[in-house]
């Protein structure tokens, strides 16, 4: 390609017949029109083409050029091209619009909690966040019982449940994801990598409802038999199942980050006498740490927001307990389980949308940090390589 172009330029510049005496710009003008393009030629800059300039310099001794250099008179792009480009621009902001709409419409349905009299009779922000002394209770407690005679919307059991399940899933998925990434990037040959990466993508492709189903039907029984648990469905089972969805996220980003570490780092470390494990532990991992952190952050975002696995495998009991083997209820699972049965616009409905807004904002924050870390890593390693 470039070779051909080179030949062409040479020809035009130095060997083309330059006897254009008496040729007026008007005679030369039809030339571009002879090209088979029907839609007209592309608008170029109005300065004379460089080819002509050089021709002029070379041949100034023999040829007198017409006073005004011939200009390529270019037709405008057809209207529908410009219209289509405008449409393209308009469609391109759809992602921004989508994010904005998600926030606006989730928050809009949650907003009555701040002003609606009907809703505020049942629940206020203070009642959600501070433990209340409910009738029948000895001391103030945060309780989630939205469909009892006195609806109680204390959110702490849900937050605690979310934290517990997320903690378990991260405790499982970070070592597994990063460890597998270390092996694939440092020890495995290219062929292993070519097989492993698509296989891990398959793991990522398993629908969460299938993972939830597997946790519910198979893993719960295993865990109960092995650990002699009281409740079959609990934070531990759902956390471990959740980690299956998080591992691919952490693995993929960590592997990418580890592989992006410049070879020179490894060579320098080896030349200084470091053993391989020292190089991996003290050079490669620290250098890749922003990328790994990004993977962990995105995995965390996934874990906090994941719905179906937790809904099916956590037991969904909204209790305040620090034990991992008790049933737990997360924010996402609460929304999924309860929204179908609520009165539109009622207190319960509003509170669920409020929880959804919180979930959105929390994951948005986590993902923004993760995304920022990825960009930073790319910039840093890009300049170092």
């Amino acid at each position, binding site marked *: 390609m470039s070779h051909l172009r080179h030949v062409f330029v040479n020809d035009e510049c130095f060997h083309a017949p330059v006897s254009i005496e008496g040729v007026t710009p008007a005679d030369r003008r039809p030339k571009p029109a002879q090209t088979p393009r029907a839609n007209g030629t592309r608008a170029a800059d109005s300065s004379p083409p460089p080819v002509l300039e050089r021709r002029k310099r070379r041949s100034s001794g023999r040829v007198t050029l017409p006073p005004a250099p011939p200009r390529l008179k270019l037709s405008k792009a057809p209207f529908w091209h410009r219209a289509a480009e405008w449409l393209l621009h308009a469609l391109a902001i759809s*992602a921004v619009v989508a*994010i904005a709409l998600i926030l606006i419409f*989730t928050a809009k*349905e949650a907003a009555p909690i701040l002003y609606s009299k009907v809703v505020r009779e049942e629940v206020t922000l203070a009642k959600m966040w501070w433990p209340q002394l409910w009738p029948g209770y000895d001391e103030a407690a945060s309780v989630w019982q939205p469909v009892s005679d006195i609806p109680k919307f204390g959110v702490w059991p849900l937050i605690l449940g979310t934290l517990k399940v997320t903690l378990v899933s991260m405790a499982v998925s970070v070592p597994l994801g990063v460890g597998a990434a270390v092996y694939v990037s440092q020890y495995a040959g290219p062929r292993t990598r070519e097989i492993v990466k698509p296989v891990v993508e398959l793991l990522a492709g398993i*629908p969460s409802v*299938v993972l939830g189903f*597997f946790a519910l039907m198979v893993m719960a029984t295993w865990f109960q038999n092995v650990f002699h648990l009281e409740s079959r469905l609990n934070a531990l089972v759902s956390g471990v199942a959740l980690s299956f969805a998080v591992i691919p996220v952490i693995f993929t980003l960590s592997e990418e980050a580890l592989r992006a570490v410049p070879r020179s780092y490894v060579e320098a470390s080896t030349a200084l006498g470091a053993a391989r494990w020292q190089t991996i532990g003290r050079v490669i991992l620290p250098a890749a740490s922003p990328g790994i952190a990004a993977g962990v952050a995105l995995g965390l975002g996934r874990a906090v927001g994941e719905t179906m696995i937790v809904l099916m495998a956590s037991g969904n009991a909204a209790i305040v307990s620090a034990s991992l083997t008790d049933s737990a209820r997360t924010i996402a699972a609460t929304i999924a389980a309860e929204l179908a049965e609520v009165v539109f616009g009622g207190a319960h409905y509003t509170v*669920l949308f409020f929880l959804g807004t919180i979930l*959105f904002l929390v994951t948005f924050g986590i993902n*923004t940090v993760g995304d920022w870390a990825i960009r930073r890593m790319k910039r840093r390693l890009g300049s170092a390589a």
Partner: protein
Amino acid sequence: MTASSEASAPPAIDRAAIALQAARRTRRNMFADGAVAVASGATLLIVLAILAIILFDVVRNGASHLSWAFLSQAPRDGMTAGGIFPAIVGMVEMVILMTLAGVPIGVATAIYLHEYASPVSPLTRAIRIAVANLAGVPSIVFGLFGLGFFIQFLGAGIDKTFFHGDKVFGQPALIWAALTMAVLTLPVVIVATEEALRAVPRELREASLALGATKFQTVFNVVVPQASSGILTGTILAVSRGAGEVAPILFTGAAYFLPLLPRHLSSQFMSPSYHVYVLSTQSPDVDATKPILYATVLVLLALTFTLNIAAVIVRARMRRRAGVPV
């Protein structure tokens, strides 16, 4: 440096290298090296084993009940017999609508980002941040969004304008589920398409422009056809994701059981993924529905795996052609 030290340099370096190797090959280092390799290899094996165990369990329990009748019949006897035909039809309709709505927008966004936008403009940045975050929004929040925006706002608005307030579109419906899913899968399409556009050589664009094509002609007659395999990858992955997700369609259109197939954009629909959720959590007789449940999971898993493998193959072919290492 003097001449004499220069002359003796190679042996000195050799000696240093040998000493370095000897120093490195202490028992502690050899043990630690082996331990790191074995430990990281073991984690990889665990990850692969998880996938293998899930596959094995589902295939072992689901294959026996899987038959043509299962795929072509409606559920009978309170979901304890029959097949999942209506669910498959519902899913296919939803996925087609989703693709029609989502893929063009995703492709357009990717084209804009890669071919038109300046990489540093605030708008481009905003779009990129939005795409990255859209991929991380919890699926249940998409469900809330679908309910709040499509059903309560758009649907109710349509009803008020065209149907005199009768509830037609202001309730869970196929079209709303499909549109919600289209928004959910938007980042998948955008990322895959942009990767493909990145693989198109710059010379092709330059050649096209040099021949006098407009920017628009260059993009749509030269660049996009070259990137078509990437668009295909994105579409396949989006379909796979859309077929498997449950949370976004929980409140926007999925139904537990319907006697009729969905015939209208405003009808509700059944879906295998929702079927799995309902059967495994709300079934009164777990043992009776278990074979059906496993077979449904097998169908779902086979579908998503086939699609994902297809996407991997298409992408690998594209990368090989573009000369990018996989």
